[in-house]
């Protein structure tokens, strides 16, 4: 075994020992297992939701609407990953790992570590890597337990769930790189943790803004499409009605007579407002464009925490699964246009589908590549500080 491998193994084993010595690691592990335990208690049958031996009849949640494996997969992604691993467990992981660099720098360990035949950059990067051990262990245990639950309870074995491990790890590494920079600057566990949570909150706000803009944009686009369809139909109807009206009044117009707008307005008084609304919606789509570009640029240079987790949906859910989920529910899936006012009532399902498509069209290379780029910059800053500092 080479010296490099020996050092890396020793640091990984040490990281595990450090984590195992902390209560928070075991508390998080216990909570993770309780989460999976709760997950195992919930099920679905032909009449509704089941909790242990009890059945709660629900129209939208039964095996007639959604298959058992898809139900479990949905719970795993939305609750297990979406809430537990990306929020609660991540906060606990940040708390657990926030002291790694500050304690290395201030705790009297650094002299001994730097006096070993290992370069500062390698020491720094290996230490950073060991900081990810916490999350790797937690996510692995969670995924294994979840696969077992889905397998035994849902009757479907889903190894694709293991894609969660690298994705959640990547997500955490973005935050951990930010915390490393703050740890290097402040040398304080509390300060680096709080500042990281603050940055995470800012990222969350940027993401929320992006979501709102995408939803607005897609909603307006649906409105424009629907209005254009409606307008085309109304326009043609008005032309035909105008010809019919004129014929009744003795003016023999040919079938292909192209009525003017004013002529059409005489038979359909709502047509002008329909046109105005269409133009107005088109203007609104245009006015959103610079904001969308701004947010897209901001997201390009920032780590995309939510979209990284969102990648799980792409890999763990098939198109059929997504369609099934989209179609769940009743007639809310249809967008309607008010004939008189031209007001478009965009169906939430359609809006969600269109928005999801926008996010799915953002390439994995963009989501992960630029986020890893950000992480690399963070590590470059922190690593340079570590490599150049006197201790």
């Amino acid at each position, binding site marked *: *075994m080479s*010296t490099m491998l*020996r*050092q890396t*193994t*020793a*640091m990984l*084993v*040490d990281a595990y*020992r*450090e984590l195992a*010595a902390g209560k928070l690691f075991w508390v998080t592990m216990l909570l993770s297992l309780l989460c999976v335990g709760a997950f195992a208690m919930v099920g679905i049958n032909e009449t509704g939701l089941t909790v242990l031996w009890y059945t709660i009849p629900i129209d939208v949640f039964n095996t007639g609407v959604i298959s058992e494996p898809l139900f479990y997969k949905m719970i795993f992604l939305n609750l297990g990953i979406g809430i537990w691993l990306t929020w609660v467990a991540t906060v606990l992981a940040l708390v657990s790992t926030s002291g790694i660099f500050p304690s290395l720098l201030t*705790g*009297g*360990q*650094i*002299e*001994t*570590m*730097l*006096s*070993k*035949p*290992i*370069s500062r950059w390698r020491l720094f990067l290996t230490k950073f890597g060991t900081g990810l051990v916490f999350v790797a262990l937690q996510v692995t245990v969670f995924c294994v337990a979840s696969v077992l639950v889905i397998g035994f309870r849902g009757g479907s074995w889903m190894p694709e769930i293991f894609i969660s491990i690298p994705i959640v790890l990547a997500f955490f590494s973005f935050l951990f790189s930010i915390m490393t920079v703050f740890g290097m600057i402040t040398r304080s566990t509390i300060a680096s943790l709080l500042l990281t949570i603050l940055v995470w909150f800012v990222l969350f706000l940027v993401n929320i803004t992006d979501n709102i803009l995408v939803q607005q944009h897609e909603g307006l686009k649906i409105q424009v499409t629907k209005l254009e369809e409606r307008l085309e139909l109304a326009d043609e109807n008005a032309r035909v009605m105008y010809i019919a009206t004129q014929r009744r009044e003795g003016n023999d117009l040919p079938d292909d007579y192209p009525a003017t707008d004013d002529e059409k307005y005489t038979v359909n008084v709502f047509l002008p407002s329909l046109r105005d609304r269409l133009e107005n919606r088109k203007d609104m789509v245009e006015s959103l464009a610079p904001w969308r570009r701004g947010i897209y640029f901001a997201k390009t240079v920032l780590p995309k925490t939510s979209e990284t987790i969102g990648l799980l949906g792409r890999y763990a859910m098939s198109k059929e699964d997504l369609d099934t989920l989209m179609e769940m529910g009743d007639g809310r899936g249809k967008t309607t246009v008010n004939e008189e006012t031209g007001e478009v009532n965009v169906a939430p399902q359609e809006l969600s589908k269109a928005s999801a498509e926008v996010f799915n069209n953002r390439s994995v290379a963009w989501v992960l590549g630029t986020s890893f780029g950000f992480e690399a910059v963070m590590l470059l800053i922190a690593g340079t500080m570590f490599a*150049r500092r*006197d*201790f």
Partner: protein
Amino acid sequence: MSDLAIDLTGVSKNYTRRFKKPTPALRGVDMRVHRGEVFGLLGPNGAGKSTLVKILMTVIRPTQCKGSILGQRVGHKPTLAKVGYLPEHHSFPGYLTGAQVIDFFGAMTGVPRRERRQRAGELLELVGMSEWSKRKLRSYSKGMRQRVGIAQALINDPDLVLLDEPTDGVDPVGRRDIRKVIERIKDEGRTVFINSHLLTELEAVSDRVAILVKGVVAQQGTIDELTQGQLRYELVVGASDSAGELLQRALPEGSRQLALPEDESQLANRIGFKGLLPTGESIEVARNTLTIGSDDPKLIQPIIDRVRAEGGVITSVRNVRPSLEDLFMQAVTDPTTGETLKPGAEEGGGR
């Protein structure tokens, strides 16, 4: 292979802070440590001892440094595989046991697992910590941690061992044990570099010493070399108010007093008489003690006769060799004021 384990020329270090004047910690240190010897580095607080050790161990980047460690330039990382180091204010992880600490740092130095296991047991035995090897460090006393620290510094079978304040926080029994460990390391042919302000400890184990004052080496060599020409005779008479006057009266004809600064009343109080014998040797009378700066017994004989003739009672006559503490105090004392130099390494403060 060079005979020198450490060979330094003109090592300097300025600590820089944004918008502040650089603070010099080392101002051109020249130092040579031979292979197989125990070398003691001493100096007052702020003299730059730890900074120098940290530069050797790549913990601090020097402003200027020419020299080598085990034949390689200072800063050459692979060379550190053959160096053991015990930092001054170390803090090994409390969640590890003594054996795990040694194993971890052994692995970090690249020692194979089997060798680590074998050597860890031997080293824990050496530092007297075998019975505590499986207990967590958080339950150790400071002295115990220090022992484990020394053991970890030896896990890689080093050619050179740097110990920064190895007896810090250790009780007298522990100090004796550590001294024995150092002697054993030396017997194994390794070079030991000790940084300490415990002068008696250093004097007991060191072959050569360097005294660092205000960022420069004030003196360097074996204790014999450093005390050469500083052997003296001390004559002590029974304590009384007139003891000092009695000793001054007993001085040979032609002895002359050196002028003491008038405004230095403290020094005047401490030293009743400071001057030269007719033959040129220094002479000093402080209370009931007379000191002649020579190891020639002939010079003291007439003084003894006169003291006895005056009715004085001589309580002791000793041929004294300066201790390491004397050398140290000389190095850190301003010869004109008799005051010790202030800590730090500011320009102009060195000797």
